[in-house]
């Protein structure tokens, strides 16, 4: 089969590519726009902003989410901030520098053209969000405030206390609700996408389950946008919300959309450590804390003294020691690995030995408790509620946890997948972050895709593609509906002995152990034996009480875990094939002094997997990455 990976990167200089594209794209005249319908799956930053802007343009949009309200999408939980190359601080920022930092931060595994466009529209994102009432932090004179974030040496991060994601999502959500009121966006909440419908080789609709009534519904459209977020919940314990799943993207993958770089998962360095067996998820402490917090462990192995009793000269501020120029602001993958090393050396704190300190004592001395509380108050309160300890009086304890997934459905420059008419936005696609995501860039990408990229590229698709009329009575819809119903009845009829969560936890342990912060050939091969066994047991022994014809939480979870099992296997295969270390993918065999050792000669490419059928091996395709502007170099933060 021919390789479908045509990245469609426009010609010309990196600075002109997007401008030129916007001119070259086909237009749809305003009177014709309302004749086109578009489905948007997911209503986080990418989905809500896409639905809002497409609705504004006049298209008929149907937006779907699993939540009871679109404003609950997990974008809501992002704390620290959003980057933009505004150079308001006069510290030397520019579109090019944001582009440069992001390409380098992604360990040269992102596509240059996409990243440049992201940096280019970043300034518009801030303008747009401020204009729609997002209350970003301000200086006394009324101008916007900025702070710095991991992986950057300039202050380009805009923030709204410790709830930037919440405020940005409220902005995008309210713009979408404006379109709901205007009648251009039709909102369907508590719906889960369970299949993608393809007619004549093009994405023409979706099958969803109404989570309240259990009803299976078909919805047709001229194009489909998937903006359903990331898949960190494959690890069971992660910072993702409970409903975050790979299901929508995975079903599209099974219908022919390639899945790119699944092994690139981000392990965030500052999470509250695991406390016990019954823990359901991990809570992130914003990376912005590393602006004023200093990370350390005791110098002596097994030093169990109270942190306040350990004198200064017996502490190892290891990030400042190892990375003097970035210090506590080293990028996430680097900071996470360093925490792991310290714990592996036996210098971890907490009863489990799996934690390091994040200490604010110096900053409180320098700036006063009031200033620290103004900057991070809600995070400190959250920490105290969860752990019962007061971080103003003693250092926080933190440990890395799965947080964000840089892999996702493969898309070209237009955010179109390998299925014509299927577009993918935000965390659900793979495109902009490479092997590691720098702080404050996920919110930027979600909004860039939804507000500033899709409105153009989707228009181009609709303006240049001949689309026959389809209706949900078409055979393709009937067949997909039938398949979905069969899978549900198969799950309901297993009537086994084990709960869905017990399978999910076991899968999560395998993934964390063998495909987590460090991976090696032996472990990955072991995981590739264990996951199929677990999957087989799942399909014979899972227990789902109740029935499928009304709200059934266990059934919802079972469908998601079934997809995580298949994805988990693909992640391990991808990790095994990528015989190099880069960003969040750290193969233990490939390192120099504990730092990731990339292999540009053999792996300077995107790996995109093609699904070939049940119990058949997926096929690996590659898209070569060319670095014409930021030259391939070893990442160093020293």
């Amino acid at each position: 089969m021919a390789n479908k990976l045509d990245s469609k990167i426009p010609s010309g200089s990196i600075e002109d590519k997007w401008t030129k594209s916007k001119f070259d794209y086909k237009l749809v005249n305003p009177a014709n726009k309302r004749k086109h319908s578009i489905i948007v799956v997911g209503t986080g930053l990418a989905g809500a902003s896409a639905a809002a802007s497409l609705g504004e343009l006049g298209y008929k949009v149907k937006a779907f989410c699993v939540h009871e309200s679109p404003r609950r999408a997990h974008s809501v939980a992002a704390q620290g901030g959003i980057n933009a190359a505004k150079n308001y601080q006069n510290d030397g920022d520019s579109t090019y520098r944001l582009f440069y930092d992001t390409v380098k931060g992604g360990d040269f595994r992102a596509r240059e053209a996409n990243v440049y466009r992201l940096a280019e529209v970043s300034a518009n994102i801030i303008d747009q969000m401020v204009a729609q009432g997002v209350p970003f932090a301000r200086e006394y004179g009324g101008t916007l405030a900025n702070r710095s974030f991991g992986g950057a040496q300039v202050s380009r991060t805009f923030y709204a206390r410790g709830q930037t994601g919440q405020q940005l999502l409220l902005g995008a959500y309210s713009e979408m609700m404006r379109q709901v009121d205007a009648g251009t966006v039709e909102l369907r909440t508590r719906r889960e996408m369970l299949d993608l419908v393809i007619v004549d080789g093009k994405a023409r609709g979706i099958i969803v389950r109404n989570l309240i009534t259990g009803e299976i519904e078909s919805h047709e459209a001229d194009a489909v946008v998937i903006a359903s977020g990331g898949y960190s919940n494959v690890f069971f314990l992660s910072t993702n919300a409970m409903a975050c799943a790979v299901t929508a993207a995975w079903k599209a993958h099974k219908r022919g959309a390639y899945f790119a770089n699944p092994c690139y998962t981000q392990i965030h360095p500052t999470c509250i450590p695991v406390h016990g067996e019954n823990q359901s998820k991990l809570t992130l402490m914003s990376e912005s804390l590393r602006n004023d917090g200093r990370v350390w462990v005791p110098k002596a192995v097994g030093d169990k003294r109270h942190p306040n009793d350990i004198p200064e000269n017996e502490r190892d501020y290891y990030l400042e020691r190892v990375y003097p120029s970035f210090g506590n602001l080293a990028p996430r993958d680097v900071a996470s690995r360093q925490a792991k090393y310290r714990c592996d050396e036996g210098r971890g704190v907490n009863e489990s030995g799996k934690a390091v300190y994040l200490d604010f004592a110096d900053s409180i001395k320098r700036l006063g408790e009031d200033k620290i509380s103004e900057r991070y108050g809600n995070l400190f309160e959250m920490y105290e509620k969860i752990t019962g300890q007061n971080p103003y009086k003693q250092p926080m304890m933190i440990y890395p946890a799965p947080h964000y997934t840089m892999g996702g459905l493969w898309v070209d420059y237009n955010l179109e997948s390998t299925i014509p008419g299927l577009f993918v936005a935000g965390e659900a696609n793979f495109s902009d972050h490479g092997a590691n995501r720098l702080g404050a860039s996920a919110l930027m990408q979600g909004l860039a895709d939804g507000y500033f990229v899709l409105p153009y590229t989707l228009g181009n698709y609709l303006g240049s593609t001949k689309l026959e009329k389809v209706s949900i009575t078409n055979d393709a819809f009937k067949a997909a509906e039938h398949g979905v119903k069969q899978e549900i009845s198969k799950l309901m009829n297993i009537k086994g002995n084990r709960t869905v969560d017990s399978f999910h936890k076991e899968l999560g342990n395998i993934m964390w152990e063998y495909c987590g912060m460090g991976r090696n050939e032996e472990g990955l091969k072991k995981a590739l034996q264990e996951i199929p066994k677990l999957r087989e047991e799942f399909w014979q022994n899972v227990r789902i009480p109740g029935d499928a014809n009304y709200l059934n939480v266990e059934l919802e979870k079972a469908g998601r875990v079934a997809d995580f099992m298949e994805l988990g296997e693909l992640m391990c295969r991808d990790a095994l094939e990528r015989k190099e270390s880069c960003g969040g993918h750290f193969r233990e065999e490939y390192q120099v002094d504990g730092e990731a050792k990339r292999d540009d000669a053999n792996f300077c490419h995107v790996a995109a997997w093609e699904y070939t059928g049940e119990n058949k091996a997926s096929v690996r395709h590659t898209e070569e990455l060319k670095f014409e502007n930021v030259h391939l170099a070893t990442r160093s933060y020293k």
Partner: protein
Amino acid sequence: MAGKTLNLTLRVWRQKGPKDQGGFVDLQAKNVSEDASFLEMLDAVNEELVSKGDEPIAFDHDCREGICGACGFVIDGEAHGPMKSTTVCQLHMRNFTDGATLTIEPFRAQAFPVIKDLMVNRSAMDRIISAGGYISQNAGNAVDANAILVPKADADEAMSSATCIQCGACVAACKNASAALFTSAKISHMALLPQGQVERKERALRMVAAMDAEGFGACTTTGACEAACPKDIQLTNISRMNREFLVANATKREKHSDGGAG
């Protein structure tokens, strides 16, 4: 952080669906870690129910970080439980005593019909937002963000109102099931910012009308909402909403038809 464990009796509201009568059922929660959150305690109870082939207790929850606003029910008569400024997902078991009996029931309000057990339908709040909880700003051509200065005090106060997570605890805590705190927080957020001025009056009129149309009760300023709010949304927002509404109502102009030039 492995600490003590607790044994609790839970009197839980079970209701199969919106038309079902519903009632309390006693369940035991054994060996609960004091480090577990309230929802993790319920997860453990649910695992046991599922293992026995029974249906788990349905409750809404998602981020479990106190920010998405999905979770929320009433524990011993208090929305989100006994801790001040805390969502139920951030309520930890170390705040309860061993051997206690806890009564758990859904948020109750005419505008929030029960879906199942502790899960209610709060989409009325989305409809209030779509009636005017936005600034009409099309994507793509906004002016530079620093072109309009916003005094820090105003930005901070707008931010404080904007922290509402739309959980509905204010409605559940109110004897009239009023949504005034929620609606007023959104009206305040936008009325305090320069960007929100153009639509300020229309917004107040439309959102208040939508709130009434959804069947929420009237505000009698008892302050129960403020006390139950996990995000410390202040009662002053309601005063501001009332003022915004009165001014808008008093100065309302007749609508003209929108005919354009030829």
